[in-house]
């Protein structure tokens, strides 16, 4: 099967007063048609910038896609002219944004905001677009869609607005949907509904989607594969099942330790990842996670590991870690039992405290 999307060595940078921020630093991944992929990582690790880069929505300046290629449906998005990119946006690739409160235009009706894309890409007239909008709103289970179509965003609840965003994304039958933290701004109960809806609709329409989240719990039942990102790089990629069963990167371990699990005993404590993500202007020379890693050794700060296949792993499982690669000291480590060097954890904690102390409490 050929890939729908093939991102190769993508570099997106922001040129700021303080220096060049390497927000996305050599990211490579593929998505097949109809496939679902999760991209997971802490805030500021380059997930959203990756998504925006795919649609060339990086504000320029200060942002710039410096190098790499984004093959979509056989064409390189980065080599297209602006008109062609616009032809893809909303039509072949659609995006669902994080905050439905701010992502809808407050002074335009729901109908206007959905029809807009239909008129543009599907060449529908006003009436057709309106009827299609009603269908779409029904599809995303907005009650009495016909009546509510001329309402303004502020007349909808957060969950309903995110449904509107989903309807908008689906409107032109895209081949790929990018969902950037689609449930982060919503109540926990609503989150599940929205995720369910997204999953079912994607399956129904055979749309590929990329789900971006900081919450491994969110992607668990949603996607077929997962890429874990850290400091602008992919640090681990695997099947969803494989990743949860057999994670191979201390950063992923950290993420897993910090989500509550109902199936674990009550005594299993939530353990945060100590320390702060690195400065993307002057990142550490070795492994980007090394300053926060309680399993680190000297080699970690000297040289950055490659993203390499994990020996004896079940499927296509890769990780960027000296410890878990062939011959590493973590190959047989059970992350659930061995939490690493406790003295290191303390050291990282203290380091973090001293950095935060020099900062003034902001607003």
């Amino acid at each position, binding site marked *: 099967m050929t890939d729908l999307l093939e991102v190769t060595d993508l570099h997106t940078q922001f040129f700021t007063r*303080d220096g060049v921020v390497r927000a996305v630093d050599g990211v490579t991944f593929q998505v097949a048609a109809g496939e679902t992929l999760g991209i997971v990582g802490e805030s500021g690790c380059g997930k959203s910038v990756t998504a925006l880069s795919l649609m060339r929505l990086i504000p320029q300046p200060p*942002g710039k896609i410096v190098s790499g290629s984004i093959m979509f449906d056989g064409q390189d998005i980065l080599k297209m002219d602006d008109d062609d990119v616009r032809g893809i946006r909303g039509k072949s690739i659609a995006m669902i944004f994080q905050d439905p409160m701010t992502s809808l235009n407050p002074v335009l009706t729901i109908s206007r905001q959905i029809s807009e894309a239909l008129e543009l890409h599907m060449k529908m007239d006003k009436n057709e677009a309106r009827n299609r909008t009603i269908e779409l709103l029904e599809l995303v289970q907005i009650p009495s869609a016909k009546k509510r179509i001329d309402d303004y965003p502020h007349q909808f609840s957060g969950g309903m607005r995110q449904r509107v965003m989903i309807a908008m994304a689906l409107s032109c039958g895209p081949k790929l949907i990018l969902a950037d933290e689609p449930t982060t701004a919503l109540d926990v109960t609503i989150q599940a509904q929205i995720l369910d809806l997204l999953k079912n609709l994607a399956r129904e329409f055979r749309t590929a989607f990329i789900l971006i989240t900081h919450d491994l719990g969110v992607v668990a039942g949603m996607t077929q594969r997962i890429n874990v990102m850290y400091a602008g790089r992919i640090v681990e990629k695997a099947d969803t099942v494989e990743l949860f069963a057999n994670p191979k990167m201390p950063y992923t371990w950290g993420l897993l330790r910090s989500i509550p699990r109902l199936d674990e005993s009550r005594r299993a404590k939530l353990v945060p990842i100590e320390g702060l993500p690195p*400065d993307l*202007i002057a990142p550490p020379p070795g492994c980007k996670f090394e300053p926060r890693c309680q399993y680190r050794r000297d080699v970690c700060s000297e040289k950055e590991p490659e993203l390499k296949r994990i020996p004896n792993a079940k499927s296509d499982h890769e990780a960027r870690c000296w410890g878990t690669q062939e011959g590493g000291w973590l190959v047989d480590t059970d992350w659930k039992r061995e939490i690493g060097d406790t003295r290191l954890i303390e050291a990282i904690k203290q380091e973090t405290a001293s950095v935060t102390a020099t900062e003034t409490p902001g607003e």
Partner: protein
Amino acid sequence: MATASATQERAAELNVLSRKQRSLWGDALYRLFRNKAAVAGLIVIAMAFLVAIFAPFLAPFSPIEIPKNPASQMEPLWTGSKFTDPRYLLGTDFLGRDIVSRLIFASRISMVVGFVPTAIVFGLGVTVGVTAGFFGGWLDQLLMRFTDIVYAFPDFLFLLIIVASFRASPFGKLLDGLMLIFVAIAIVGWVGVARLTRGQVLALKEREFVEAARSVGATPRRIMAKHLLPNALAPLIVTAAFVVPNAMLGEATLSFLGVGIIPPTPSWGQMINEGFPLFSANPWAVLLPAICISVVMLSFTFVGDGLRDALDPRMKT
């Protein structure tokens, strides 16, 4: 492109976590001094202050005394006309008084009018605003009704009526009319500051840190002084930077209309008023004070804009 600033912020947020930070005020000061226009404005204002303070030493002639038998109104030296006199660099006014000396002494009026009423405006406005915003109730109601009325009065119209009404009274003649101008500007101006402070306090009152302070039993006085005022300070400082030139403008306009500073004391507005009837004959007697007003007002605006950008970079306009 236009979204640049938003992204710059986002980029900055990315760094914020690990980049060393200056303190809030230090950072603001740093940003202010990077702003060339604001620095230029500060320098001009500082110079105007020095000129005002040392006016008696700098002015070559008396600004008030009319010379005996003035030949005629002199023009500035550079005009090269026959009506020039090397003693009078910028010429003389219609009574033969040295314009340099009058401009120098007039700066005193502008500086004093800029700062004295502003102090009253802020003392009164902040006190009432904080109290009204914090306690609400009848004081708040009263303030809001009062501001509604004052808002139906254009500031300057109000100022004009007050000054015109009391100009002939003994109070109106105190300090060559300055006293009345101080009081009038203060009466007109304090309401705006009170309203702004009230709004700030109302917004801040709902914030978590005030809630937190209250929950540990801080007294209202302590909450006001330690939590509300410091956080409302930045917009107040920015406002001050605009209230000062506004007060100067008030005086200049009143004097220009002939109801401000009582002659012969020179003020820039006064000089324009006196020179205007002979504008076509000797334009410089009018242009020079006009230039002085413009330069000082622009300087204050540059500093005010600079302060606003420095203290609240998100508000950058």
